[in-house]
């Protein structure tokens, strides 16, 4: 059964997976850059962040379906629509983890760093970011895995990806198509998670690793 499925849809599946990966990688990258900068800024401004973060978390609860639907009215059927939507959704987990990771750095270490004569930028680069890195990476991991599943929505406006299989399967009541889209999506999420874990393991200094 798998063989016949692959015979019939093999090349379409590969195209769909690549499109899916493209959406995920671009959206998470864009989301990361925005979230990382915003997270650093907010961690310096506790008053502002007590307003901004709740607002963002409300945004997060708007269903992706609704958001892409609305956005598509303005930007039309193009990759950009999907990328904007997914990037916005990718921001929040990274932003929140960056922010929390930074504000929970042990205050005595910051004081030690100030006492050594580091300026604010040096403290951020040499002490705070390395110590928050585990939290930041786990935010990226979360975003990436969410984005894999949200990217299914791209097919809703006809932009391909693994969602296409799923939607077509639903429309034609073809279980094989639904599963044929869903399983690669799940595997993709696992694969991304695995790769990020590996990268994190490589980048974390021994002094910060848990036993």
């Amino acid at each position: 059964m798998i063989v016949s499925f692959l015979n019939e849809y093999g090349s379409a599946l590969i195209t769909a997976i690549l499109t899916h990966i493209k959406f995920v990688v671009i959206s998470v990258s864009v989301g990361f850059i925005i979230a990382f900068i915003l997270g650093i800024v907010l961690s310096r401004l506790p008053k502002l962040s007590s307003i901004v973060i709740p607002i963002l978390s409300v945004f997060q609860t708007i269903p992706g379906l609704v958001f892409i639907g609305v956005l598509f009215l303005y930007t039309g059927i193009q990759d950009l629509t999907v990328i904007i939507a997914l990037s916005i959704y990718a921001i929040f987990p990274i932003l929140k983890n960056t922010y929390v990771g930074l504000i929970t750095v042990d205050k005595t270490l910051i004081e030690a760093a100030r006492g050594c004569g580091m300026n604010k930028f040096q403290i951020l680069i040499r002490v705070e970011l390395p110590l928050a890195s585990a939290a930041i990476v786990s935010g990226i991991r979360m975003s990436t895995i969410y984005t894999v599943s949200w990217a299914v929505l791209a097919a809703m406006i006809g932009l391909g990806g693994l969602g296409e299989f799923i939607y077509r399967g639903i429309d034609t009541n073809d279980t094989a198509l639904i599963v044929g889209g869903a399983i690669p999506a799940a595997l993709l999420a696992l694969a991304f998670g695995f790769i990020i874990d590996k990268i994190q393991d490589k980048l974390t200094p021994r002094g910060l690793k848990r036993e």
Partner: protein
Amino acid sequence: MIEFKHVKKAYQDNVVIEDLSLTINDGEFICIIGPSGCGKTTTLKMINRLNKINDGEILIDGENINNIEVNKLRQGIGYVIQQIGLFPNMTVAQNISVVPNLLKWGKEKIERRVKELLKLINMPYDEYAHKYPRELSGGQQQRIGVLRALAANPPIILMDEPFGALDPITRDILQDELKSIHKQLKKTIVFVTHDMDEAVKMADRIIFMESGNILQFATPEELLNKPASPIIKEFLGKISYSHNANDLTCADVMRTKVFTVNRKRKTLECINMMNQRDIGSVIVVDDDDKFMGIVTIETIKEKGVPGALIEEILDRDVKTVLINHNAKDAFDEFYDSKLDYLTVLNRNKTVAGIITKTSMAKALASLVWGENNDS
């Protein structure tokens, strides 16, 4: 030289330090002590501007610290905190080289300095330089904390209860090491503590603070003998409760640094060694370091033949006590004997230490004014 001139510090309307003036000379070891909330840490952190002052001025070698760029100032002052504050993402070597790095020293110069510093505290470079803080014990971590402060060779070191979180034995060892580092390097050290024993042990002069004021600024002796205020007296008194004279053993009242000679030494050698150390007698031990007896300089002069071995003339019939023996009994025995000291032995007959009049007096003094832990 560090000078405070009419320094005032307030948090909003809450004035913690009203009007503080003091002078710390170069190379002095100063302890600031006082009850919690007396302003001792606040005062310390004013020196490296971690605390801003509201009025008055602080001068280092005549220069107002507010006129020095703040990070430059801090790079020139070592800083050690109670929580140690080693950066967990950096190795021992990286932690030590934080300030030299900020000062943009060359790589080789930094590595040389790290080696030199680790040598100072007997932690081999090859074994420790590439370890991370959490791979070290608390005592080792704080040693590295001290080295980080010393790294760029600043003339002044500020220490905020650096040994407060360590167990009493480790604390004692680190105190000794710091004392010897201070002697070798002649830094000006300002050391905050709430432990009077620590202050008395370490300081050249002690600043006793209460409610933001200096109650007394004096040498340890002066402070112990003539406490300037009832508050100081009470502070000194608190410490002494922790010990009971009847519980003391010989281990508590003995001196552990003892000079011993092997039985095979020649008499003339022994005389020479005694002269060098200005002592009147030596303890003779056998090849397993077990106690054999004592030889006094008089005995050697009387019976000694040039070239003879020391074991031929030693007095084997001397009083000794076991290390866990009650100190009072030992004291009585010691008092009745004509000896200058009483030898204290471990269970395996090796020499643990000696009780002298001085070691006894020290132990008694610490009973009255507090011992070096439990406070």
